[in-house]
C-alpha cells in the first residue's frame, strides 16, 4: 500500500479522497490555491501546501507545482479526483515516468477514450452497439450530408475531443447542416484546439444511463450496475439515481456485459464509467467512457456497499479486486442531488460566504461536502458545494427521504439549487420515474415552476 497520497484537487472530492486515505491508514497531502487556504480539505489532510494563486491554470492544473509538491512531501501516489487533471493523459504519463503512481487509468486509456471518435471506432470493431453515424471523423460538409441522409435526421455533430456539451450541434434537417458543421468545427477548434468532428444519430428524449466498472491491474473487470443521470440541463447533471427506473434485471445484465467488454477492449484499468444512451425502445448505444471517478459515484457505493475510492487506491497499489462479479449485490435504491452555489432558476453561479450550514442527518442520509459555516464560495471553481445522497429500501422510501433531507438542509449566505431540487422531487413524472434528458429543461420552462 502507498505511504502517502497527494490529492490533486479541492472541494468535496478532495475531502472524499482524504477520508478514504484515513480509512486505509495512508497519509494524505492536500494542495491548495491561495484562496483555498482555509478550506475543509486543507484542514482534514495530514499535510498541506500551497501550489499557486486562485486561477486553476496556475494552481490545480499546474503540473510542475503539483508534482514538485508530491516530491518534496515524499508522496508515492497522486489522486486526481475529477475535473482539473483527472483526464489529462500527459499528467498521468509524467506521473508514471517519475515513479509517482497516478491513481486512475493508464495514460493510454485516457488518451484513447479522450478521442471520442476513436473510442467509437474501437467499440464498432469489438461489435459493441454505438449510435448510427459516421465512421471516424468527417472532413467535409458533403460527407456529413451523406452520413446524415443515410442514418436519417435529426443528427448531432460532436467534437472528437469534446465533452460537457461543447462543440456539439443538433441538426434537424438538411438545410441546417452546413451552418451547424462549420459552427461545431469552429467551437471545437476554439475549445479543444482540435477541429475534428463526427456525426451521430440524435435522439430527442433518450435516457442517460452509465455503468460503473472497476478493473484491477491484472485486467479483472467487474460492473457495479448502472446510474440514471437523465435529469440534466445543458449536459450538467443535477439528480442521479440507481437503479434506473427504466432498467430491469435483464437490461442491467446486458448493459453491464457491454460496459465490461468496452473496458476490456482498451485494457482499461482502475475505475471508469461507460456512458450509454437508452432510447424509448430500450435499445442502448455506447456514447463515451469517462476515465475517472464520477461526481455521482456515491449512489453506487450506497447500493453496493463498495467504497469506490478505496478500491481505486487499492487497485493502483497493485491489489487484486476485493470483489468478484457474483459478490456485487445491488440492495435498495439511492439518489443523489447536487447542491450548487447557483441561482436555482438561471443556474448563474452565486459566490459568497456561507453564514449558516446545517446538513441533514439521520437514517439513510449521506452528505459529501467541503463547506462549513464561514466557508467562502469563490467564483474561481466549480459551483458544486455539496452532494446530498440518500438510500432507501425502495425507490419510494429514497424519494421520501430525499424530500425530508432537502427540507432539513439549511445553507444560508448564498443561493443554491435546493429549491429547484425540491420542486423536481415533487413532480409526478419524476416520482413515477418517467423522465429523459429533456425532462429538466421542460420542467424549468413549465409555468408551474414558479
Amino acid at each position, binding site marked *: 500500500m502507498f505511504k502517502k497520497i497527494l490529492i490533486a484537487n479541492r472541494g468535496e472530492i478532495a475531502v472524499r479522497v482524504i477520508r478514504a486515505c484515513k480509512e486505509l491508514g495512508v497519509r494524505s497531502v492536500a494542495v491548495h490555491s*491561495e484562496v483555498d487556504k482555509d478550506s475543509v480539505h486543507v484542514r482534514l489532510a495530514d499535510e498541506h501546501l500551497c501550489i499557486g494563486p486562485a486561477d486553476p491554470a496556475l494552481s490545480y492544473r499546474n503540473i510542475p507545482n503539483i508534482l514538485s509538491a508530491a516530491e518534496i512531501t515524499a508522496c508515492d501516489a497522486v489522486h486526481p479526483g475529477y475535473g482539473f487533471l483527472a483526464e489529462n493523459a500527459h499528467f498521468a504519463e509524467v506521473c508514471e515516468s517519475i515513479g509517482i503512481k497516478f491513481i486512475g487509468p493508464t495514460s493510454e486509456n485516457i488518451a484513447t477514450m479522450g478521442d471520442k471518435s476513436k473510442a467509437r471506432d474501437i467499440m464498432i470493431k469489438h461489435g459493441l452497439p454505438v449510435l448510427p453515424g459516421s465512421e471516424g471523423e468527417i472532413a467535409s460538409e458533403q460527407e456529413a450530408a451523406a452520413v446524415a441522409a443515410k442514418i436519417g435526421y435529426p443528427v448531432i455533430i460532436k467534437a472528437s475531443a469534446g465533452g460537457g456539451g461543447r462543440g456539439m450541434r443538433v441538426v434537424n434537417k438538411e438545410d441546417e447542416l452546413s451552418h451547424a458543421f462549420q459552427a461545431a468545427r469552429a467551437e471545437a477548434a476554439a475549445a479543444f484546439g482540435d477541429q475534428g468532428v463526427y456525426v451521430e444519430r440524435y435522439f430527442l428524449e433518450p435516457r442517460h444511463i452509465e455503468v460503473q466498472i472497476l478493473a484491477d491491474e491484472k485486467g479483472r473487470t467487474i460492473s457495479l450496475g448502472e446510474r440514471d443521470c437523465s435529469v440534466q440541463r445543458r449536459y450538467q447533471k443535477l439528480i442521479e439515481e440507481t437503479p434506473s427506473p427504466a432498467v430491469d434485471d435483464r437490461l442491467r445484465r446486458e448493459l453491464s456485459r457491454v460496459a465490461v467488454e468496452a473496458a476490456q477492449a482498451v485494457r482499461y484499468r482502475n475505475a471508469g464509467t461507460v456512458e450509454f444512451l437508452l432510447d424509448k425502445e430500450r435499445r442502448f448505444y455506447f456514447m463515451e467512457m469517462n476515465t475517472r471517478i464520477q461526481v455521482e459515484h456515491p449512489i453506487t457505493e450506497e447500493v453496493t456497499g463498495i467504497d469506490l475510492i478505496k478500491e481505486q487506491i487499492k487497485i493502483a497499489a497493485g491489489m487484486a479486486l476485493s470483489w468478484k462479479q457474483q459478490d456485487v449485490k445491488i440492495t435498495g435504491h439511492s439518489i443523489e442531488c447536487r447542491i450548487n452555489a447557483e441561482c436555482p432558476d438561471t443556474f448563474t453561479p452565486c459566490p459568497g460566504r456561507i453564514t449558516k450550514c446545517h446538513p441533514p442527518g439521520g437514517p439513510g442520509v449521506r452528505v459529501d461536502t467541503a463547506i462549513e459555516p464561514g466557508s467562502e464560495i469563490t467564483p474561481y471553481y466549480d459551483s458544486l458545494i455539496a452532494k446530498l445522497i440518500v438510500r432507501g429500501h425502495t425507490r419510494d422510501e429514497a424519494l421520501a427521504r430525499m424530500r425530508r433531507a432537502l427540507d432539513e438542509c439549511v445553507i444560508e449566505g448564498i443561493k443554491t439549487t435546493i429549491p429547484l431540487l425540491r420542486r423536481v422531487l415533487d413532480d409526478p413524472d419524476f416520482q413515477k420515474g418517467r423522465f429523459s434528458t429533456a425532462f429538466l429543461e421542460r420542467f424549468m420552462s413549465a409555468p408551474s415552476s414558479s
Partner: protein
Amino acid sequence: MKGRAPKPGKKAVKPEPKPRPDALVDPKTLQELIAVFQAAGVSDLEVERSGLRIRLRREGAGSASSPVEASGPASAAGQGAGQPKASAADEAAEGLVTMRSPIVGTFYRSASPYAESYVEEGAYVKKGQVLCIVEAMKLMNEIESEVDGRVVKILMENAKPVEYGEPLFLIEPGAQPEG
C-alpha cells in the same frame, strides 16, 4: 492564545487565571500584542493563529508605502510541509520587500553543495541578481531579486521544502552600500 514560551530565570508566580474557553481573545495577550505593536514602530499589525486573526493599524499610516501584504499560508490545524519562517511582524516591517517563492520546490542558497551561497544577510543586491535556487522536478530555478537593496533577513533554511508564496527573503529596497 495559550502557550507563551517559558521564560527562563523568572521566579514562579501565581498561575494566571486561564482565559475562559469562550473568550474571543485573552485580553492580556491582546495588551501585550498592542504593547509590542507600539514599541515596534510599525504601521500595521496582523496576527493570525489557528482561526484567530488580530490586526492592528496605526493612524496616519494610510497608504504609506506598504508593499507587503500578508497573504501567505496561515498555519492551520494541520502541519504544513513547509512553515513560513517569518512572523507577521517581520513581514510588516516598514518599507521592506518580501521575496516569495513563485513555485513549489526545495530551497537552496547555493548552486551546488560545494558552492558559496548566492547571498548572505546584510548583502547588497541588484535587481535581477540571483538570490537562491528553488529546485522543482530536478530543474534548478534561479530566483532573482525584484529590487535593488539590502538583504535584511533570509527567512528559509537551506535545503528545505517551500510552498508557493512562501517568504524567502526580506529586502530593504533602495539601500546602498556606504561609501
